[in-house]
């Protein structure tokens, strides 16, 4: 079943696929961070977050209940480009296509895991 990018269903599907992706889980292992993304012009959620909690990883539509460590602002088209693996999250952050503020050390420590997310998303049927 196709899922709409940045919808609740997409968040659930991505969480499940990521948890089964060995390389991703190894890159995410031991990381503790909440990464909140605000997406302009999104046809689905305009805010979502990723929670790295040591041995688990969760994506949810909407803002986190607690404080986020890292906040990012980007437009929908850029987020689609990242999701499709045509631009890495690190490259987007470093070149300003995604504006990041907060704990930059945490953001950089998530770099390899974030870059693998696009590979995880390849296994999903996503409608953009």
């Amino acid at each position, binding site marked *: 079943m196709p899922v709409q990018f940045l919808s609740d269903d997409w968040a659930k599907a991505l969480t499940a696929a990521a948890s089964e992706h060995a390389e991703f889980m190894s890159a995410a292992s031991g990381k503790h961070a909440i990464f909140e993304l605000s997406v302009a012009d999104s046809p689905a959620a305009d805010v979502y977050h990723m929670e790295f909690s040591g041995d688990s990883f969760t994506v949810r539509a909407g803002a986190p209940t607690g404080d986020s460590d890292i906040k990012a602002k980007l437009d929908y088209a850029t987020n689609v480009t990242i999701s499709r693996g045509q631009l*890495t999250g690190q*490259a987007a952050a*470093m070149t300003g296509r995604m504006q*990041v*503020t907060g704990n930059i*050390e945490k953001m950089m*420590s998530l*770099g*390899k895991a974030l870059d693998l997310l696009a590979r995880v998303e390849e296994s999903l049927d996503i409608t953009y």
Partner: protein
Amino acid sequence: MVKSLAYVGVASPALAEWEAFGPEVLGMEVRERENDDVLQLRMDDRHHRLAIHRGERNSLLYLGWDAGDEDTLGACFEVLQRNGLSGRWGTEEECQERRVLSMVVADGPGGIRHEIVSGQKVEPKTFRPGRPISGFVTGEEGMGHVVLAVPDLKEAHTFYTSGLGLRKSDEISTFIDLVFYHCNPRHHSLALTQIPGVRGLHHVMLEVADIDDVGLAYDLCMERSIPISMTLGRHVNDQMVSFYVRSPSGFDIEYGWGAISVGADWSVAQYDRPSIWGHKMIAQTPPGAFEEVPR
């Protein structure tokens, strides 16, 4: 091959900010402007070491490498050709603009422009620091070091070692991987990190002759609320005591003292952390003057 890092040129809208930051915080000397669109900063009796060219975005424009003499410059040109790396002789205008006698221009990995030069202009006994400091460590060690992002480390390694003749000093692998290269006793004149799809300048390191120069600069940044990117710390490899401050052009300045030298008996090491102590990353935004590289 190349003997030292001679100069760095960046594009930035922040010329006015540099006019205060360069001399008042870093102790550099601002050259009297010949051109409204270029600000040149000095660290010693060389004509200039850092040039800020007016531009809409912060980006790295070029790195200048001193070949030492024209024979070596000619040899550099031949090595670039032999290794299939692009290289051409700089025009008279390009040489005049950089105040050098001769130049070879080479496009490095990710499209970063390198200028290998000979005969940089020197004006003896003219350097006047922008604030009282004991002085910058330059001479045979050049202006300092640069840390660059490149899209592909392997390709970059070939260019910098086979093309420019730099030698690997060591590697640090943490959540990012860094490879360090030297071309004189300075532990590294260049370090590289791989960010796929990205090229540019992470930081420029300026070394001062006294730890108090570092401390006074740290105080000035605090007093003026200039954002510190990384707190005071000591690196594992060059053992430099330094802090990082965000420059007006996005990239950081590492301001340091006390680095070790590499000699003939140097052997390459690997480390799993960047610092013995300190260097806590406290910046709230990512550093750098980076650009996307078309894939």
